[in-house]
């Protein structure tokens, strides 16, 4: 088995001279649930479309299952092994729920009738209803059903819970987790919902302006990032240079708030070396890490 089910290197793409991807490096470990985060227009959908072979990059390489996505012969083979939910939730408008399931099934030799039946029931999808008459949430669920039932090794999900109410979101997340646990499916999903990413992702990547700002294991990231609060007496002259790892310093009166990305022990030591200071450290949430990386640009 390959280590990284998705791997891009220096991927670039422009639209009418406007760069959307500026040398994107992305590595998604096989078996992970990878949360792909970024603001609107950061390049998430462009990345996803490139990975699915729906867009051709201007430069760099992208591999899925170890195969270059630009290789037309392999492209169909790659897509057969991927299940996806696209952002626009577009499906053939003239079909009913029942018809599109029947239409999709024969394309996929590993189609799972058990999963199809289970999700039809669980998502309460009306079989006779035409696709345009479904709500956005229903369409999301239908796409998810089609993606999951094909027995894919990799699910690529562009905003899978977009348009779902909180109860439906919980249902979908729970099912994604169940699929990952029982089938070992790798999931690559984009989202704005940091709280849901924080729950189900074990790896994350934050993209901003077409570049990967930070990526890696979420737990490791949380272990490395700390917020330090330093209280110092008036007499102390604060250092103008901090040891590496200090990302952000904010001073309010005699309180200094530091966001550290790594090297926390050394930073604490430096702070403690100032006479009369006290240092406290606090864990950092994904939201703080996210804002730190997209705000500074």
């Amino acid at each position: 088995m390959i280590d990284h089910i998705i791997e891009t290197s220096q991927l670039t793409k422009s639209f009418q001279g406007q760069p959307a991807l500026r040398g994107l490096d992305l590595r998604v470990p096989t078996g992970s649930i990878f949360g792909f985060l970024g603001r609107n227009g950061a390049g998430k959908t462009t990345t996803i479309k490139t990975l699915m072979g729906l867009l051709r990059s201007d430069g760099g390489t992208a591999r899925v299952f170890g195969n270059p996505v630009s290789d037309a012969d392999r492209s169909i083979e790659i897509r057969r092994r991927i299940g996806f939910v696209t952002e626009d939730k577009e499906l053939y408008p003239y079909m009913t729920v029942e018809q599109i399931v029947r239409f999709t099934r024969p394309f996929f030799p590993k189609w799972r009738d058990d999963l199809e039946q289970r999700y039809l029931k669980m998502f309460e999808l009306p079989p006779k209803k035409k696709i345009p008459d479904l709500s956005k949430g229903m369409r999301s669920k239908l796409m998810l059903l089609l993606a999951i039932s094909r027995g894919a090794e990799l699910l690529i999900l562009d905003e899978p819970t977009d348009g779902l109410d909180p109860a439906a979101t919980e249902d979908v997340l729970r099912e994604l987790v169940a699929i990952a646990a029982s089938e070992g499916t790798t999931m690559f999903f984009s989202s704005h919902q940091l709280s849901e990413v924080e729950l189900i992702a074990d790896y994350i990547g934050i993209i901003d302006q077409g570049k990967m700002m930070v990526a890696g294991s979420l737990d490791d990231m949380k272990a490395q990032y700390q917020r330090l609060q330093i209280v110092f007496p008036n007499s102390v002259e604060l250092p103008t240079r901090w040891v590496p790892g200090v990302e952000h310093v904010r001073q309010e009166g005699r309180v200094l708030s530091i966001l550290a990305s790594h090297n926390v022990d050394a930073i604490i030591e430096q702070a403690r070396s100032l006479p009369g200071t006290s240092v406290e450290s606090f864990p950092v949430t994904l939201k703080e890490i996210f804002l730190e990386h997209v705000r500074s640009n």
Partner: protein
Amino acid sequence: MIFRLNQSSGIPLYLQLIEQVKHAVETGALREGDQLPTIRKVAVDLVMNPNTVVRAYRELEHEGILDLKHGSGAFIKESAGGRARVLRKAQALVQSAMERLAPLGLTEDELRRVFENELAQSRTARQLEGKP
């Protein structure tokens, strides 16, 4: 389910699971031979990543608290109870220290800071001696 997650705390979820198992062992809520829920069940019930549950269970196995039997699940190890006894002894020591601190009238936060400061000091001292 013995587990509950606090998402807003910023503490990695696998550490939260580990702490909760240890706590349950220390209080006697989990005893030798007790079985923990399967990875899939924890993941689905708490809506969290199964790999994160695996990581917590592996770490607990590494620390000698859990026994992971392939296919049949995770069990609290016999020796885990021994650790609990040591911790209860430590708890008694802390209790007597608390009683002596009581006349100083410190708040809970202040006490915590004093304790954490002491931990940090001994950590630094150990590092200076080149010990882990």
